[in-house]
C-alpha cells in the first residue's frame, strides 16, 4: 500500500508540492501544485472563451452560449444593483472572480487522497489539488482587489479619502480646532478597518475550503479505514459532505464576488455634501 509511503497522517495530506528556491528565506519557495492547477483552470477557461467566441450568434443562442449569457446577465444585474456609476472594468472582474473561484472550488470533489497517491506515483511527495486551499490564491486575489480599491479611492476622491483616514471615525470626539489631536487614533482605526477587508476576504475563502478539505480527509481516515461498516457509512457521509461542499464552493465564490463589488462600489460612492 502506498499509505505507508505517502500520507499516513492527515497533516501529511496538508503539505504542498513545494519547490524551495532559498532554504533560509521562507518566502522564496513556490507551491507548484497550486500554480499548476490554477494555470490549468485559467487556461481551460480562456480556451472555453475562445471556443465559445467563435460560435456566438446574435439571434437564437443555445447551450453553452445561453448559459454564459445568463451568467453575464446575472453579474451585470449584481453590479448594476450595487454601483452608483458605470465602470466597464467591474463586471468582467466580478465575473472572472465568480467563475474562477467556483471552478477551483469545484475541484474539491476530486478525491484528494487518491490524487495525492497518483501524484506520488510520479515522484511527487505532496499534492493539493484545490488551489483555494492554499492561502496564496485567495490572498493574491484579495490584495489585487484591495489595490484596485485604493487606486479608485485615490483617483476619484483623493482629498475626501485622506480626510476620512485622518478624521474618522471619531469626528466629534474633541472640539473642531483640536481635531488633529486624535489623528493617530483615527488613522490606526481606519487602517485596521481597511486592512480587515482583504484579510477577511482571503481568509474567509481559504478557511472554508481548507476546513472542507480537512473534513474530507477526516472522513476518509476515520470511516473509510474502519472496515466494512466504516466504508459503508463513509461512502454516504462522504457523498453528503461532497454535495454540501459543492454548495459551499458556489456560495464562497458568490460571496467573494459580491464583496469585491461592494468594496469597489464604496470606493466609487460619490462624496456627500
Amino acid at each position: 500500500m502506498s499509505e505507508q509511503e505517502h500520507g499516513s497522517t492527515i497533516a501529511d495530506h496538508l503539505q504542498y508540492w513545494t519547490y524551495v528556491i532559498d532554504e533560509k528565506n521562507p518566502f522564496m519557495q513556490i507551491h507548484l501544485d497550486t500554480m499548476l492547477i490554477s494555470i490549468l483552470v485559467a487556461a481551460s477557461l480562456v480556451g472555453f472563451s475562445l471556443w465559445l467566441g467563435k460560435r456566438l450568434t446574435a439571434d437564437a443562442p443555445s447551450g453553452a452560449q445561453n448559459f454564459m449569457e445568463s451568467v453575464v446577465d446575472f453579474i451585470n444585474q449584481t453590479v448594476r444593483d450595487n454601483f452608483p456609476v458605470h465602470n466597464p472594468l467591474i463586471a468582467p472582474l466580478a465575473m472572472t472572480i465568480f467563475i474562477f473561484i467556483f471552478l477551483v472550488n469545484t475541484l474539491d470533489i476530486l478525491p484528494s487522497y487518491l490524487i495525492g497517491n497518483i501524484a506520488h506515483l510520479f515522484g511527487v511527495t505532496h499534492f493539493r489539488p484545490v488551489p483555494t486551499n492554499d492561502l496564496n490564491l485567495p490572498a493574491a486575489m484579495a490584495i489585487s482587489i484591495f489595490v484596485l480599491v485604493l487606486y479608485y479611492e485615490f483617483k476619484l476622491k483623493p482629498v475626501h479619502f485622506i480626510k476620512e483616514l485622518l478624521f474618522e471615525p471619531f469626528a466629534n470626539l474633541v472640539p473642531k480646532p483640536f481635531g488633529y489631536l486624535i489623528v493617530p487614533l483615527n488613522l490606526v482605526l481606519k487602517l485596521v478597518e481597511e486592512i480587515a477587508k482583504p484579510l477577511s476576504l482571503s481568509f474567509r475563502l481559504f478557511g472554508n475550503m481548507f476546513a472542507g478539505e480537512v473534513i474530507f480527509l477526516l472522513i476518509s481516515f476515520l470511516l473509510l479505514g474502519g472496515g466494512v461498516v466504516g466504508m459503508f457509512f463513509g461512502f454516504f457521509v462522504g457523498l453528503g459532505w461532497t454535495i454540501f461542499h459543492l454548495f459551499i464552493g458556489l456560495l464562497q465564490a458568490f460571496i467573494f464576488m459580491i464583496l469585491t463589488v461592494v468594496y469597489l462600489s464604496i470606493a466609487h460612492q460619490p462624496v456627500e455634501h
Partner: protein
Amino acid sequence: MSIDLTFIGQIVVFLTLVFLMRKYLYGPLNDLLEGRAKKIAEGLAAADAGKEAKAVAEAEIKELLKASRARAQEIVSAAEKRAAEVSEEAVNKAREDGQNIVDAAREEVTAEIERARQGLRKEVADLAVLAAERVLGAELDAKRHAKLIDGVISQGIGRA
C-alpha cells in the same frame, strides 16, 4: 500555509485571467446582450409606433367615411331637389303649352267665326241685292248702292 512566491504567481495568474476573460468572454457576450436588448427595444418602439399610426389611420378613415357619407347625402338631396325642380318645370311648361294651344285654338276659332261672318255678310248682301232686283224688277247698280246695302245689312246683322 505560508505566504510565499506562489502569492506573486497567483497575482499574475489572476490579473492575466481578468484581462483575458474581459477580452474573450465578457466583452463579446456583453456586446451581444446589449445589441440584443437594443434590438428588442427598437422592435418594441417600432411596434408602438405602428400601433399609434394604425390608430391615427383608423381615426382618419372614420373621419373620411363620415365626410364622404355627408357628401353623398348632400349630393342625393341636391339631386332630389333638382329632380323636383325639373319635374315642376316640366309640369309648368306643359301647362303653359296647353294654355298656349288652347289660346291659339280659341283665336283661330274666333278668326274662323269672323271669316264666316264676313262671308255670310257678303252672301246676305248679294242675296239682298238679288232680292231687291227681283223686287224692283230692275237691276240695281250694285256698285253704286253698295253703301246703302251695307248699311242695311249691318243694321240687320247688328239687330240680329
